[in-house]
């Protein structure tokens, strides 16, 4: 009988004190990590083509209204330009060039290329380039940290046009050959490794 009682008490004790750990209060800390990759971006330009219009004045040379400050409309806006880390801004440009070249050689008194000031404003500093050859480049020194263009965004302005001679040297008295002229401006925002 005594032996049975001892067994019973041992059984109750075993139920009351389970073999696993327990506590009045437990806590746990979970660390959370994440990353943001360095990147830059630009929105789509309001217009990806700036149409300067008829380049020639009454005498066939460059219209005087185009040789000075920017004419209204000769610009476009690129909204939502940003870099979330240190970065570089570069701009390359080519002169406006006659697209359908005549079969004959360029006469000395004629122009088939027109240069211009491509000015980009809205970033940390204005940036400008005046192309005489293909791929003339301008850049801003690397900027530390993140930056975004305030509204309305980056504005590219085209101004101060001038004709180029056969040697890609500016010469104001040249007559423009007939046809379509086209140049390109490429703006690049890139992270600075």
């Amino acid at each position, binding site marked *: 009988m005594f032996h049975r009682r001892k067994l*019973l008490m041992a059984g*109750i*004790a075993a*139920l*009351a004190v389970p073999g*696993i*750990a*327990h*506590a*009045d*209060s*437990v*806590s*746990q*800390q*979970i*660390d*959370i*990590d*994440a*990353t*943001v*990759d*360095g*990147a*830059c*971006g630009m929105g789509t330009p309001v217009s990806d083509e700036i149409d300067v219009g008829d380049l020639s004045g009454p005498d066939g040379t460059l219209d005087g209204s185009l040789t000075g400050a920017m004419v209204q409309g000769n610009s476009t806006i690129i909204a939502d330009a*940003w870099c*979330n*880390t240190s970065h570089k801004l570069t701009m390359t440009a080519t002169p406006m060039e006659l697209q359908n070249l005549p079969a004959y050689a360029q006469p000395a008194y004629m122009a088939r290329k027109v240069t211009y000031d491509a000015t980009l404003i809205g970033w940390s500093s204005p940036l400008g380039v005046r192309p005489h050859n293909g791929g003339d480049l301008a850049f801003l020194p690397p900027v530390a*940290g*993140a*930056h*975004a263009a*305030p509204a309305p965004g980056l504005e590219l302005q085209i101004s101060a046009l001038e004709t180029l001679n056969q040697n890609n040297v500016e010469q104001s008295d040249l007559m423009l050959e007939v046809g379509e002229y086209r140049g390109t401006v490429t703006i690049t925002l890139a*992270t600075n490794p």
Partner: protein
Amino acid sequence: MRITLLSAFLVGASAFAVPASAQNVDSKTLIVQSTIPSYCSELGMQDETLDLGNLTGTTGQLVTEFAQNDTLTLETGFYCNAPSTVKIVAEPLRHDTVTTVADFTSFTNRVDYTASLKWNDQDLPVVSTDSDGAEFNITQANIGDMELKISDPTVADNLRPIAGGYAGLVRLTISLAQ
């Protein structure tokens, strides 16, 4: 011989029929008593780290869902055998090194989120914008798997997070209710 054996049997029978006590029936009541203390099982995990991956998409804006590893099983069959309280504090994801954002109108160094602790039938969410966290009263004993989910990444004013590493934490404390 037959008479002798019968007598011996009768003597033996009377020895069993007359107990030493004066009563015919006796009983004793024994109380079997025990106490189950209130307690919770322990969380057996070491410090865990959830790597949520890249926080931004191609536009540099915050993702709408974390890219990876947003759920962690803390314990299977976790229990408290009495009412308990669960306190959760979620600290926002902050940039590892940049404490001040120069262009604060466009960028941020902080990403907030919701940390939800699921424990059996209990769903206990807290947002990292609440610096004090949240405390939940569990009014009954509870047992079940315990899982933490990180969700709903947010930034103020749709700002872009600046590049780099981010770190935050979730602190979880489960106590017996007083």
